[in-house]
């Protein structure tokens, strides 16, 4: 809110990396939502000529997405920890951005 008079146009490499990691972190729930909504599009048992998906495949899919999301979140978290260990204050500066 006008606190910093002239924020630099370009960030140094580390801050830049950190911000892109934050972007990925922010996108992750949207990706998860999309992947978990895929079963909505699967053919179901009652209708159509297409054979329905087997339950074992459905379980495998849902839990695979789950694992992938968990690994992605944990991975991003540890990367962020590595990157931001030097400048913890940047986190707050980021939040004032769009």
């Amino acid at each position: 809110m006008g606190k910093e008079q002239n924020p630099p146009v370009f960030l140094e490499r580390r801050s830049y990396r950190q911000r892109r990691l934050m972007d990925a972190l922010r996108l992750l729930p949207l990706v998860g939502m999309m992947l978990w909504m895929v079963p909505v599009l699967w053919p179901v048992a009652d209708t159509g000529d297409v054979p329905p998906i087997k339950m074992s495949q459905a379980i495998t899919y849902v839990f695979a997405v789950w694992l992938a999301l968990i690994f992605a979140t944990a991975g991003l978290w540890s990367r962020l920890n590595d990157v931001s260990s030097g400048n913890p204050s940047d986190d707050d500066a980021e939040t004032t951005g769009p």
Partner: protein
Amino acid sequence: MASLNLLIGVCLGYVTLLFGVAFVAERAAARGKGAWLRSPLVYTLSLSIYCTAWTFYGAVGYAARSGMEFVTIYLGPSLVMIGWWWVLRKLVRIGRTQRVTSIADLISSRYGKSNTLAIIVTVMAVIGVTPYIALQLQSVTLSLSIFADPSGATDGGMNLLSAGFWVALGLALFTVLFGTRNLNANERHDGVVIAVAVEAVVKLIALLAVGIFVVWGISGGITETMARIDASEIGQWHMDRSRWAALTVLSGAAFLCLPRMFQVLVVEHDDERHLHIASWAFPIYLMLMSLFVVPIAVVGLDLLPAGSNPDLFVLTVPLSQGQDGLAILSFLGGFSSATSMVIVATLALSTMVSNHVVMPIYLSLQGEGATVSGDVRSVVILSRRASILIIIALGYLYYRISGGSGALAAIGLISFAGVAQFLPSMLGGIFWRGATRVGALCGLVTGFTIWIYASLLPSFGTDVVLSQSVFDMGPLGINWLRPQALFGVDGLDPTVHAVLWSLLLNTGAFVVGSLVSFPTPLERLQGAQFVNIFAHSGHARGWSASVAESEDLMIMAQRILGAREAQDLFRTEARKQGVDGHLPEPTPDFLQRLERELSASVGAATAHAMISQLVGGTSVSVQDLMAVADESAQLLEYSSQLEAKSSELSHTALQLREANAKLTQLSVQKDAFLSQISHELRTPMTSIRSFSEILRDTKRLSGEEKTKYASIIHVEAIRLTRLLDDLLDLSVLENGQVSLNEATGAMDDVIDHAVATTQAGGATLRIARVNGPVRVMVHTDLDRLAQVFINLVSNAQKYCKADVPELTIELREEQGNVEVYFTDNGVPIPNDTRALIFEKFARIDDQDGSGAGLGLAICREIMARLGGDIFYLPMTNGNRFVVRLPQTLALAAQ
């Protein structure tokens, strides 16, 4: 076959263990050794109260009935945790900076600390969560009955209702003991949190153990299990598409809005780093909890006789295989799920009820409000304990009335839909500054009404509250108001229908209400703080505390925080302010801090009301803000006036100092002159006396000598007369008694006369004349003017010490004035004495003592009388005196 008594024994042992753990944790925290209680692991495990007995037993039943749909209940929370950056991070920060004690407190605080909103949210939460508590009681008693009669066909001679009663009583006891032990400033309950964490581990291990037994023990491996699943009656993908999406969203919303989740997510913890770790650790927990649900359901459907309650497969499958130990472990898991949920939920609800319903009523009944005497803390704790008992009693009552009917999952979803009504107001409040109290009220009431009508009341079944005709035809025959087909939208799943309409209209009413209403200043300030919590975690709103008395505040704080804590707080503040003693000044900052401390104990709205009673101003009005602005403007003006005055004063002081220095100098000169003039008078008098004595006493004097002595006496007498004449002259001039003898004459003639007069004795001074182009005529007292000129010329004669003394007399006409310059080539008058030369008795290095120091003073007086001026101009090598006469006098002459 494990006997019921053994089971009850195990239960009691387990509960005793929990009591012990909670007690140890409280002790450790009290001794300041509780750092391990605040670890990310405990935080993640405490979040697991999301997984209740509904999840533990119900999920398997749900899977047996609807296949994979059960998993949506876990997908929503997983997404919320993975997306912690969007909402949770902000909620936790707000919870920490605003000292939020519950979700009702958050919403009320955001919308201008409105107690109406707090009460509405509290009531909604109690109504929404009561079925959920009943659900837990139901699941515990159901599971007990299984041990009494594994077939589940009868209740095995065991009184389910009385069992429910004893379970409810035990839970109430635990919650009262560890939830209301003290009125903690941060509303934290270390004992409860650690007990919940232990229970989280127990239920996870129990479910995993049953799952592993089913997969490897019964089915014989993963591949075989998968084959078995595909071959079962739920082996094909079968789902209601709208439910899949709606339940995912609903469970995510409920995860944020459930009072117990808010309690563990925001209130019990304030370290944001824990949240970062929980963002991936908690999804792992959820995944593990749901990993074996489908296999257990499939094996249960396979092994157990048709008609067995699928909600209890977790127990009945091990029992049917003779695995009593595993069954008991599984029972403990279910028991843990139920108890931890009930404890935290009741704790959260009781805080809300006591802070937002009981305390305001109590304070208003007291009449004097915040100024009553006595310790309010005991009242707060008492009201919390009563609230806990009432809420659990309500849950038990619901359980008795509903008679343990209905599938567990259905009841849970109704509860979810109820609390999800908080979502629009909460998210709108933290992301949209335009959200107002009126909007929140509209949204909450609309959403809640639709929820009751479309979800809660139909859940009792037809002809209980709503008649069959209302279901079929709508109330009063209005077709588009049918509770499960609002606005004629038919064919939707009832849960999806209720969630869709209630949340849609809730959001709509919230947005429209916010758009058309205007927030109070307090709302706007709170809104700005909540929405921009990361930009400024400070606080903008201030009390104007002129009326507040520190003593009253102290008394009030003591009653709520406790005497020692309040005294500590006040003493610390006093020290910070640099005030002696225990009572700090009631500055706005301090009041703000105090309000926050109090709000941690009794909620924001109550704390705000209490302080405002003492301070006077109930809230910040626009007038207040304007007054503050006015005041500061006045202060600015006043200070600039002060500044101007002070510079004026210092200027005057400088002038005074100069005047004083001049006076001192003059006084010194006058003293010098008095001694001088007495000397001056004595010298001629002495010679006159001596020569007159010689003339009188000496008989034989020649005529020549007599003449000589007589003429000396004569000259001295003349000198005396002249001195006295000068003094008289000056005195007359100064008193303004002089009469001017005005005549018209040429300036040149006057100068000529003066020069001729002074040169009469044959002087050494060379005088040069520079005349203007025209002859200047003046109309004035020519004799007096001549006197001035004579004085100036004779001064030059006397004091010009040049080798060849020379005086230039120049006549000029300049800017409507006639000016005569008398410029000599002598030594310039020293700087320090220039200011004094026109003063009386002023004499500069007067060696011969012939002058009385009155000449220039007389000149100045004469020129002032004539309407002109005389002044001194220093030259580089010489002195210049300027005599100025106004042109009018000159013009008049022509």
